[in-house]
């Protein structure tokens, strides 16, 4: 008799399907397709100055999307990101405007405040056992409330240069360093995701919490760390938001959670956790900024961008679902 191979050895050699490439390259592909459309409709889209503008406004979302990628990969969600951005921002601005603390120190203090706001989210989720959707919905409202109490009636502007340079300074007067900072965050985020225990355990607990616990992973710790990182990055994004316009408004970050979560999901991170795509989130954030910019370039009324963003979200998520089904 012929030697029998156990069934387990017969491994179907799976061809890398078209769907696979759509999954990996999806958001980048979408950027190319959208660019082609814009090339036809409005060649001005490709002017270097416009490209810089797109990446400049995208930098805020890119930074937050990296944090959100970790949160969602860990099977979580954070709706309070826009309020964290505003609250850490208003407190930094107050330090500059109303205290004798050197403005440069407002930056590390602000980042620490952001980290604290995120940690509070994490503690509510882990210690009080609130569902993340509810916990961060509450802090979204609560943090925003504090912003409005502190700065609801006025806006602030003309901040000291030491404070706003991160968001404002342009290399050779052309290229905003905020874009470089955003790319740095993506690179560091990618390394953390791929090469650190933090990243690995976030993916593990998002994929199967029980299995992660069985492997001896302290899932509560990593859950809190995810929210803390999100808060830190929201404060960093706040620095750019304030610096870019040299102003603070109490409405900064309103509806931002929608854009940030959308960027992450468009980027291919699994909505239910376990699989994170840091570079995908980068591309997702850039695509969102392009769509918003495209609406402006085409001189369509501002609110058309909502419809455009909705279309992008639906198409990209539908593509992933189709791919998942096929596999």
């Amino acid at each position, binding site marked *: 008799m012929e030697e029998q191979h156990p069934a*387990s050895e017969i*491994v179907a050699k799976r061809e890398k399907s078209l769907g696979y490439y759509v999954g990996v390259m999806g958001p980048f592909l979408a950027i190319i397709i959208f660019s082609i459309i814009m090339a036809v409709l409005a060649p001005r889209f490709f002017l270097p100055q416009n490209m810089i503008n797109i990446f400049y406004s995208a930098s805020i979302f890119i930074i937050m999307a990296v944090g959100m990628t970790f949160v969602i990969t860990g099977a979580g969600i954070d709706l309070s990101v826009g309020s964290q951005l505003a609250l850490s921002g208003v407190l930094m601005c107050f330090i500059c405007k109303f205290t004798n603390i050197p403005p440069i120190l407002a930056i590390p203090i602000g980042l620490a405040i952001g980290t604290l706001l995120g940690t509070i989210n994490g503690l509510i989720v882990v210690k009080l056992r609130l569902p993340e959707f509810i916990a961060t919905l509450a802090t979204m409202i609560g943090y925003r409330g504090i912003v409005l109490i502190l700065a609801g009636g006025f806006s602030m502007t003309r901040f000291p240069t030491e404070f706003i340079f991160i968001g404002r300074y342009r290399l050779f007067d052309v290229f905003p360093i905020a874009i470089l900072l955003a790319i740095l965050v993506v690179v560091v985020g990618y390394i953390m995701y*791929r090469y650190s225990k933090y990243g*690995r355990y976030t993916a*593990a607990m998002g*994929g*199967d919490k029980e*299995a992660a616990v*069985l492997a*001896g992973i302290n899932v509560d710790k990593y859950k809190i760390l995810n929210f803390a990182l999100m808060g830190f990055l929201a404060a960093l994004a706040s620095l750019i938001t304030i610096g870019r316009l040299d102003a603070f408004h109490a409405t900064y970050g309103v509806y931002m959670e929608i854009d940030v979560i959308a960027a992450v999901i468009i980027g291919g991170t699994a909505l239910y956790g376990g699989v994170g795509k840091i570079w995908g989130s980068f591309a997702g954030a850039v695509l969102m900024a392009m769509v918003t910019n495209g609406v402006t370039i085409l001189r369509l009324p501002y609110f058309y961008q909502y419809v455009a963003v909705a279309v992008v979200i639906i198409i990209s998520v539908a593509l992933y679902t189709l791919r998942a089904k096929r596999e």
Partner: protein
Amino acid sequence: MSNQKPLLEMKNIIKDFGGLRALDNVDLSINPGEVLGLVGENAAGKSTLIKILTGVYSKTGGDIIWEGQKVEINNRADSLNLGIDAIYQNLGLVETLNVPENLFLGKELDKKVLGISVLDNKKMEQESRRFIKEIIGLDIKNLNDPVINLSGGQRQSVAIGRAIYWDAKMVIMDEPTASLGVEEVFKTFEIIRNLKKNNTAVIFICHNLEHIFEVVDKIMVLRAGKRVGFSDVNEADKQEIVSLMVGMDAKTAS
């Protein structure tokens, strides 16, 4: 009975959930390299008993003696440190991670780059490839695919391979054959025999008595939180075991 020193002894284990006594003075003893079949109907206390060993629950009363020493198992880490691995129905694998990521989960290999400790993914992959092929005798080509893309048997091999790789002294298998095809069930038996050869003790929980009788050395029956039977598999009789499980006298049942 062998006069070998037991690997694990549980004495008078009690577990209460509020007013409900889930385990009532349960004793258990297992030697190195021994396979113990744990049977009982649903809610008999099987899962509670093993969750005490894996550190998911803490016992209300009783003693756990591991290699002759009294120990406390307060969490999963304590249990892992003793060398107790568990393979549950879902195998304890994270299905979105690939084979090396699962094999090394919680015990990743790292290396220093510029003084910072980073995961050594390449080494983990090479080590997994070598180990899976040489020790488990499995040829998984798509090692870097998420585990969800592997067959049930392959997944189980990875889970058990992890226990062997990390030199578990005891492996708890909860319904490992429940969702497997015939051929894969035989593969599981083979793996259990390999564990035994490796001097690893196995606690095997299973509803299928045919499977139990196929691989175990001893059988322990739980009913309503009490140990109602414990015997050598050679001296056990299937009919008698069933009677003990459901709580009828063997004679009246037959």
